[in-house]
């Protein structure tokens, strides 16, 4: 295998938080060396980046691939290609499939399918409770041995605190990561949007943003009790931030993420009942959006995800309350996140800290860094290249993006996994 040398690259380093010109050498699927000037190429294959950005590949926690059960919505092949095109080199898949991934046997199916069809790394999550029903914990030990990187009931909350505290305690003994959905189930029952003026105007059932803080408060109390390692998948409201900040300051093993849609859209985007904007939790107020973007820039919120959720046309072409929740995001994650950079709300190294380094740290991965020894999972992108999104051009099988027709900036020019180029945009 020949070495690859990237020269004239604008290196986005999420560890040093720098954005400087330099070069990078890949050898044997790993980053061998990082240079601040172009070195002698020797017999390495040279890729001239032409001043464009070279960054670690995105690690996306919480991707729904609809296998098993709903392969017509998304398969490992289509999700893998969409990820490669979107600059995502690792997808961490959700267990909310049909059936749920709650046994080592179903987990093995996922791994086998991913291995056969997806060009990117696929790391599966498993359910925390059997059938995601919140009654009995899954075989966390066996599942971990079989490769589960985290345990989560996805968008379901384990309402029985006794069950949840036992699962957290057991997970702690195995140092297993538990990922929680922080929405109080009682308050959010039946809700389609966030309560407030917009919900009242449209006559849609709303949930108070307080539902998020309440669920986070509960989970923090249980962490204090059990000492488990915990990641809140989506923190989307200003009111939840002080609790998160306190929990971190008190030394609890807690991290938090947010979906890119909550960073770039708000409740008003639903407009005349546009169901592609129906996501879970619902889009928030502009004040919440700005507060959460700030929390990402400050590092309080650790991770940005696409929360990729494929839905077919039939499940979206319904009255808003009846329509399915979720939006695809693998291919729009980067240009959407770059809106924050272009709006000067965050710089590129901090943005990539949330897209690469922090998710790697949460999962204990070597990737997500531009450092010697790290896997050569890389993306080359032009942050300024304009595009108008056409949903019919998406590689995902499902086309339910809220960004259809949107003008965005940011094109992935190339994607490398373990040093091999898996995607190229001419």
């Amino acid at each position, binding site marked *: 295998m020949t070495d690859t040398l990237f020269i004239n690259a604008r290196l986005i380093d999420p560890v040093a938080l720098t954005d400087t010109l330099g070069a990078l050498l890949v050898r044997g699927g790993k980053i061998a060396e990082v240079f601040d000037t172009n070195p002698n190429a020797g017999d390495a294959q040279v890729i001239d980046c032409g001043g464009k950005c070279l960054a670690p590949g995105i690690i996306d926690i919480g991707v729904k691939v609809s296998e098993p059960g709903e392969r017509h919505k998304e398969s490992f092949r289509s999700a893998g290609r969409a990820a490669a095109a979107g600059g995502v080199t690792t997808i961490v898949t959700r267990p909310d499939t049909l059936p749920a991934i709650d046994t080592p046997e179903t987990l093995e199916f996922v791994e086998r399918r991913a291995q056969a069809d997806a060009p990117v790394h696929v790391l599966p999550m498993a359910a925390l409770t059997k059938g995601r029903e919140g009654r009995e914990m899954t075989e966390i030990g066996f599942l971990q041995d079989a490769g589960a990187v985290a345990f989560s009931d996805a968008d379901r909350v384990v309402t029985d605190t006794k069950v949840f505290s036992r699962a957290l305690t057991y997970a702690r003994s195995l140092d297993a990561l538990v990922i929680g959905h922080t929405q109080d189930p009682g308050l959010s029952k039946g809700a389609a949007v966030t309560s407030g*003026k917009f*919900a009242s105007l449209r006559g849609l059932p709303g949930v108070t943003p307080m539902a998020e803080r309440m669920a986070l408060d509960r989970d923090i109390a249980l962490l204090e009790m059990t000492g488990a390692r915990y990641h809140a998948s989506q923190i989307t409201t200003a009111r939840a931030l002080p609790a998160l900040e306190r929990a971190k300051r008190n030394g609890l093993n807690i991290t938090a993420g947010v979906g890119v849609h909550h960073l770039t859209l708000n409740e008003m985007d639903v407009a005349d009942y546009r169901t592609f904007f129906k996501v879970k939790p619902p889009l928030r107020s502009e004040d919440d959006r700005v507060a959460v973007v700030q929390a990402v820039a400050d590092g309080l919120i650790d991770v940005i995800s696409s929360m990729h959720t494929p839905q077919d046309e039939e499940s979206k072409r319904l009255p808003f309350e009846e329509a399915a929740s979720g939006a695809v995001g693998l291919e729009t994650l980067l240009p959407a996140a770059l809106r924050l950079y272009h709006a000067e709300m965050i710089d590129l190294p901090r943005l990539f800290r949330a897209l690469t380094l922090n998710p790697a740290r949460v999962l204990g991965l070597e990737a997500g860094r531009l450092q010697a020894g790290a896997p050569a999972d890389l993306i080359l992108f032009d942050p300024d290249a304009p595009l108008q999104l056409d949903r019919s051009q998406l590689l995902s099988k499902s086309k339910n993006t809220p960004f259809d027709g949107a003008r965005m900036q940011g094109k992935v020019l190339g994607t490398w996994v373990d040093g091999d180029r898996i995607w190229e945009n001419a």
Partner: protein
Amino acid sequence: MTFRARHLLGIEHLHPTEITTLLDLADSYADHNRRGVAHRDVLAGLTQINMFFENSTRTQASFEIAGKRLGADVMNMEMQASSIKKGETLIDTALTLNAMHPDLLVVRHPHSGAVDLLAQKVNCAVLNAGDGKHEHPTQALLDALTIRRAKGRLHRLSIAICGDVAHSRVARSNIMLLGKMENRIRLIAPPTLMPSGMNEFGCEVFEDMEEGLKDVDVVMMLRLQKERMDGGFIPSEREYFHRYGLDAAKLAHAKPDAIVMHPGPMNRGVEIDGTIADDINRSVIQEQVEMGVAVRMAAMDLLAQNLRAARTETQGVMA
């Protein structure tokens, strides 16, 4: 032509001059109805389909009579009993109906926004007869006409809307319409039945009935929508009546000539005392029902005019 809308989906997108145009026409229909003057030529040759995905004897009858008075061929479809039980989606139902070439489609649906969705898929004029908790435009228009006839104007009035605002599409359409016509709107409800953010619509919000009713010109009562509640909004009907039911003592805080309205059907002894509802000096509830037919005649007349104009234009292009 000052009524341009293709559909009547809500008050939100109507211009005040469109509202006035419609009310003027409805006013004349109301007089004609009283005198028994027929207008069977207005909608002659047009097919009106009433599609009710949610039960409503009163509204459906009102639309049916309005259509028949204007000469339309009216058909009622009981959608609850029909295709949705067989799993057909709303859009498929719309496309199926559209293929039968109706001219006017009157739709009621239990979900907010469902009528808007349906209107995107059909070629005929769509009238919203109530969608979820969103809008009920003809109710707001008939309320407006009733107020205008009783008070001689539809601006600079102080109007109280009382009761179950949270579950009421009638309240939303009325807030929109009365706001557009520059009235003062006071909303009175227990906090559990008041949607959030209502003060941002330019309404004054009250939890105390007597305080809220002070010196108002119009008292608009809302039906307690027990069927839309999943429990626990109010402790009991008798406590609700005690604190929010309209009786003579509470009504005494309004202006002496204040009128009392209710969209029906009434829960007597829950939101309104029977004697107030029947008091011919205060209650205009029967007149509201009467204006309902006139307003629906006017709405269908105007929409049919626009529909015919659009069709003539298309034919002109094709010829």
